[in-house]
């Protein structure tokens, strides 16, 4: 007896994956890697240099090596224990100023934007154009005028005039208002009017719509505006250096400049240490705000 014939099933062989040659890889993907590495080097080198300088005693600009041979905290000690240059004061000044200015920038900008986006009133278009026009000129063009105004304000209210952080904050607020109102208005315009109307019918007042509906939905743009404002305040030099005088009232930008401005190259170490410390809160803020800067927040509100 023969066993029944087993049908032969022919399976087509799985074609072997052709290995990419290096040249092919370079053409398809490799060049992207090359560009990415150049970009990374471009971004990281200065940071590395500052970190290195901060931990090296008496570094020079030209001869500093990227990896400190003999890491030390001397620079930080010198930075923090110099009564002529009260770094801690500057630090606190700058951070408080940056946060408060950012907060008010966001609030004022959002308020103006809400009005421009949602209300129809006489002078709305003209007002929008005017804000844009004013914004075309850099703020320090008005430095002389600002200085004179602040000097006169000092005569009446010394608390918010020259050599006052509150005064400086007010100047910053005025300068940044226009562009922020535009930026936020652009975002508000993308939030459908029907959401407002629906809330109105539900019984919400303008205030409740603004705080309860619009602001939460506009979180991404508010985070961006706030972040930009913080960075601007920390970096701003021209106006701060003109308005602030007392050593203990300076901001970081003005104060740190003293390390390198007068006796050239002598104090790069403490300068680098100071800059490094100043960068920490900005980076932390960035990480914290990142989750708010997400698109698609209004998704799912209207239409199917």
């Amino acid at each position, binding site marked *: 007896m023969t066993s029944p014939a087993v049908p032969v099933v022919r399976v087509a062989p799985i074609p072997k994956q052709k290995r990419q040659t290096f040249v092919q890889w370079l053409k398809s993907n490799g060049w992207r890697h090359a560009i990415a590495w150049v970009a990374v080097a471009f971004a990281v080198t200065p940071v590395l240099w500052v970190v290195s300088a901060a931990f090296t005693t008496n570094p020079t600009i030209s001869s500093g090596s990227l990896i400190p041979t003999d890491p030390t905290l001397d620079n930080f000690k010198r930075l923090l224990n110099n009564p002529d240059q009260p770094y801690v004061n500057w630090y606190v000044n700058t951070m408080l100023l940056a946060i408060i200015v950012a907060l008010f920038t966001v609030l004022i900008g959002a308020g103006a934007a809400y009005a421009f986006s949602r209300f129809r009133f006489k002078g709305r278009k003209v007002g929008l154009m005017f804000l844009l026009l004013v914004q075309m000129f850099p703020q320090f063009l008005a430095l002389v005028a600002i200085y004179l105004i602040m000097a006169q304000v000092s005569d009446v209210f010394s608390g918010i005039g020259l050599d006052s952080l509150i005064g400086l904050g007010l100047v910053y607020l005025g300068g940044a208002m226009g562009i922020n109102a535009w930026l936020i208005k652009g975002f508000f315009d993308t939030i459908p009017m029907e959401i407002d*109307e629906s809330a*109105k*019918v539900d019984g919400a007042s303008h205030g409740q719509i603004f705080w309860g509906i619009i602001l*939460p*939905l506009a979180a991404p743009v508010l985070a961006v505006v706030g972040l930009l404002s913080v960075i601007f305040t920390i970096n701003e030099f021209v106006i701060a250096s003109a308005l602030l005088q007392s050593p203990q009232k300076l901001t970081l930008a003005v104060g740190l400049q003293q390390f390198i401005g007068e006796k050239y190259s002598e104090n790069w170490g403490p300068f680098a240490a100071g800059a490094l410390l100043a960068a920490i809160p900005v980076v932390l803020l960035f990480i914290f705000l990142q989750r708010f800067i997400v698109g*698609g927040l209004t998704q*799912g*509100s209207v*239409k199917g």
Partner: protein
Amino acid sequence: MAELVLTEIDKVYDNGFYAVKDLSLDVADGEFLVLVGPSGCGKTTALRMVAGLEDITDGTVAIGGKVVNDIGPRDRNIAMVFQSYALYPHMTVGENIGFGLALRHEGKAEIKEKVDRAGRLLDLTSMLTRKPKQLSGGQRQRVAMGRAIVRDAELFLMDEPLSNLDAKLRVQMRAEIASLQRDLGITTVYVTHDQVEAMTMGHRVAVMRLGELQQVAPPQDLYDNPDNIFVAGFIGTPPMTLMHAILNVEGDSAGLRIGSQYLPIPRSVVDARADLVAKNGQEIIVGLRAEDIFHEQREGSHPLEVTVVLSEALGSSVHLTFGLAGTPVDEMRLGSGLAKEEEQELTRLGHSKEIEGVAVFPPRLEFRTGDAITVYANGSRLHFFDVESGHALR
């Protein structure tokens, strides 16, 4: 719960455009009124004026006997469902539904209870903690409904709430909304451009055109006795076939001359309409419903020679678009102020010399485009309108 009374309300834009003109409407307590019309007819504007989202140029809106012209939307105690749903994307379904209650400072436990009840009613119980973007279109629509029913509003306003749903879901939600309204008994104004919604959902239907109210009547009444040719042409799918004809009454017989053809009608049909009797020998407009045209001879029907323009087999029936020699009616032009001479001029220029009509025939009948065929019109179920004004001759 309350009645809604609109008294000669106007909406005029800055450029002088009348979006709504002299609109007067009474909506009884607990009534479901459907506001229907083509796009741009002012129906949504009228609804938004009732809601308080648009200013009222002239006239008054009264809810529950109280004039609300100067009262903001938040104090009118109304609930509105928007075409786009307009859910709050950053809130959960439960928060969306309870938002209006929270604004009215109701207690947490009370809000939860009401939201849960609305959730049960709308089959949303398992979704209450989700965000709107995690829901399907139909579920979002139900959330929008929930937001409306959770508050004990006096008036429901709905602005084309089903137009973003797919066809099947629309049928389902249509029935749900209608039954919900019946159960709750809340006065409702429902805006739509959808024929079927208009016919099936409301107690009464108000037809608008170019900002003006054309007719308010129960759906079947509207279908059977349209006040003018606009309502006649707008209500009903497929639309009523409208054509110019000359009325001829002689002795016991009566008939219509349509182009070169003659359609006999019972004398009693003419006699029942005093306005029509006076039009003997004159041109009138005649309307014929698609279901009153047959493919075979029946009692009381008379032949008309037509040519086949298009035959659409829908499975359950065949929609036959046919051409009929004669003068067609452009109901958009009629009554809109265009002089008769202009119309005749357009006709002379060969604008259109053929009446186009639609008939609904039983399934599996086949027609070829261009064929000359005979159809049979029911002479006793005709509609008659005045040539000048477009009003029904009764």
